């Protein structure tokens, strides 16, 4: 049975995702723990959070992911990053 599972499920791991602003309010929490494969990318984080917080799907399409406080491309693997944050469009100033 174990051999029938996709590779990603065999190596699934839990990662904590930091949320801010409207995303945090909609989720009702400032961080979510999600299950992703060990080869998951920034885009996978966005997809997983979109399933958990469906009301934010439109906003999530405009969000960027930061690993250890640096923006990364959607194709970037999460790797060994210790902090994963979803950054909604910013509005400082």
């Amino acid at each position: 049975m174990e051999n029938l599972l996709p590779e990603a499920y065999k190596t699934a791991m839990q990662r904590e995702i930091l949320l801010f602003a409207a995303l945090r309010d909609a989720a009702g929490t400032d961080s979510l723990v999600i299950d992703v494969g060990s080869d998951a990318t920034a885009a996978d984080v966005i997809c997983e959070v979109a399933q958990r917080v469906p009301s934010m799907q439109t906003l999530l399409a405009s969000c960027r992911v930061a690993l250890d406080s640096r923006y990364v491309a959607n194709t970037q693997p999460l790797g060994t990053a210790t902090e994963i944050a979803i950054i909604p469009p910013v509005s400082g100033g």
Partner: protein
Amino acid sequence: MSECYVELTENPIDAGALLTKVGDPDVGAHAWFYGVTRRTTGDRVTSLLSYEAHPSMAVAELKRLAAEAIERFGLNSIVVVHRVGEVPVGEASVVLGCSSAHRKSSFAALPWLMDQIKTDVPIWKRETYADGTTQWVHPTESVVDEREAEDDA
């Protein structure tokens, strides 16, 4: 030797205290920008703005941008202070200052830096309107265009 000062603060920004941070006998120009919370956006009336940041990343991004501004415009010094938490209407939410040997460098640096802050620095504002409703501001590209057009008007 160029100087760079970056700060996030929950307190009102004391712009006078920042003057010394761009002081240098070899500069001929200081330029400053005060971003101040505005009461009206279109026909909506704001009673309060509240800013939230990813603090460590915001400081890291501000330092990166300040260093790039020094390099790009040949500045002698630069100061960036952004307020977080509640900011009453009419108070400064952001203060930028820079100095350079000649005025053109400092004049050019401020709009460039402000545009970068509004694009990349993880700070968000939440409007509380006079009718009590609240709204996070998360500008998409089309909304940015509208806001810029309004700001330019």
